[in-house]
């Protein structure tokens, strides 16, 4: 398991098998996020911590592919739904489900939208991004000979992924011309989720495709130029996705 503080990545030897016992044995940081050593469904939360400058313990479980093997299988009985991520706080909160976690953190820091309506717009965008993200996961998990098929399924003109990207470009543009952020006047969780789940992965596996989306492309640049995000991206571990 790799355990990093928010500001420096260090590899430490695995804790005792009982993840919960380990947590009790050590001084509980204000926030502890446990997930695979992936961006996937926890990176939006990590980006939220980065952009707000909130220290947290960034615990990473080894990930070698799908189906999941190794370390996770030994410890998964400690997790309520046998899944990660999990967010723990010094007050004894233990929260599961990636969106519940991200929304909780975003709300604590005022990055989930200002009004109930803005929050709903953020939520709508989050859910749609997550559905599209599944197409990319299938690509990453595919055997080499299947990858071209999954690639085409994702990025085809008529694919559900492309329809989602079209909708996101439209929504962004509809927000005061699209040269700001998805919702309201400032960066929210929706922008960070787009970056980590979609934009980042598209840049990695099919950068030309993003050129079809000028407003989303410049949103990516805008996000990456936030100093705290730039810093985080430079130091975070390289991962499969």
């Amino acid at each position, binding site marked *: 398991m790799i355990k990093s503080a928010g500001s420096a990545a260090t590899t430490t030897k695995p804790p005792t098998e009982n993840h919960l016992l380990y947590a009790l044995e050590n001084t509980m940081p204000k926030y502890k996020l446990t997930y695979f050593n992936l961006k996937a469904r926890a990176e939006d939360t990590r980006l939220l911590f980065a952009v707000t400058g909130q220290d947290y313990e960034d615990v990473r479980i080894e990930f070698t592919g799908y189906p999941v093997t190794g370390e996770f299988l030994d410890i998964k009985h400690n997790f*309520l*739904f046998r899944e990660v991520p999990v967010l723990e706080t010094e007050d004894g909160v233990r929260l*599961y489900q990636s969106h519940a976690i991200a929304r*909780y953190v975003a709300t604590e820091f005022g990055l989930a939208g200002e009004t109930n309506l803005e929050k709903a717009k953020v*939520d709508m965008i989050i859910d*749609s991004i997550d559905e599209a993200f599944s197409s990319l996961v299938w690509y990453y998990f595919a055997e080499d000979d299947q990858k071209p098929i999954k690639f085409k399924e994702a990025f085809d003109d008529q694919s559900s992924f492309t329809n*989602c990207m079209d909708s996101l470009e439209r929504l962004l543009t509809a927000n005061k011309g699209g040269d700001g952020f998805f919702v309201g006047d400032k960066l929210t969780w929706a922008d960070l989720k787009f970056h980590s789940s979609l934009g980042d992965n598209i840049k990695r596996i099919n950068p030309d495709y993003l050129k079809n989306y000028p407003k989303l492309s410049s949103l990516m640049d805008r996000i990456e130029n936030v100093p705290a995000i730039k810093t985080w991206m430079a130091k975070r571990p390289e991962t499969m996705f």
Partner: protein
Amino acid sequence: MAKYQLSYFNIKGIAEPIRMLFAVAGVEYEDIRIQPEQWPSEKASGKYPFGSMPILVYGDIKIAQSFAITRYLANEFGLNGKTNLEKANVDMIADALKDIGEKIGKLFQEQDETKKAEKLAEIKRTDVPTYFGALEGILKDNKGGDGYFVGDDLTWADLLFFSQSEYYPMMLNEDVLISYPKMKALRDRINEHPRIKEWLEKRPKTEY
């Protein structure tokens, strides 16, 4: 005066918790049901932000994605817990219910009867105890489990659970809640809620 408009197919599905939310809150809305043959032209019209349903329209406001809609209305009607933490627990329970609901739903789509029976046995052995066991625990931890999932009052997580539970006997070939007494009692309690009872009596009767 703008009126809420909810559009979905003529099924319960992922819109039913929203309809139940309106019922419990005692808020009027237009319960629009699109027929399958209408949907292609509706979708092509560009009215739907992500080309999907359900969608909530309220004056200028247009919201897609069932949980975004449910959460928005629950916040408006005070049915989403009191604190950020309570809301987060509601979200966690809702997302878990969605996960197990999708696993069950996917199994149900299996055409091969033998494979379906195998998958059903597997899900009853693994995912059902994992999810339902966890949810039963969460309910029990909330002051003994004779109230609701989160806090002191009904939230949309309870309605989502109730709505999903209507499918369990059909999809799992048994009332799986018999093994999860607090959840079963919660389901029965919601079933007796006067406004839910009224809705169940008057809603269109659909197989799904």
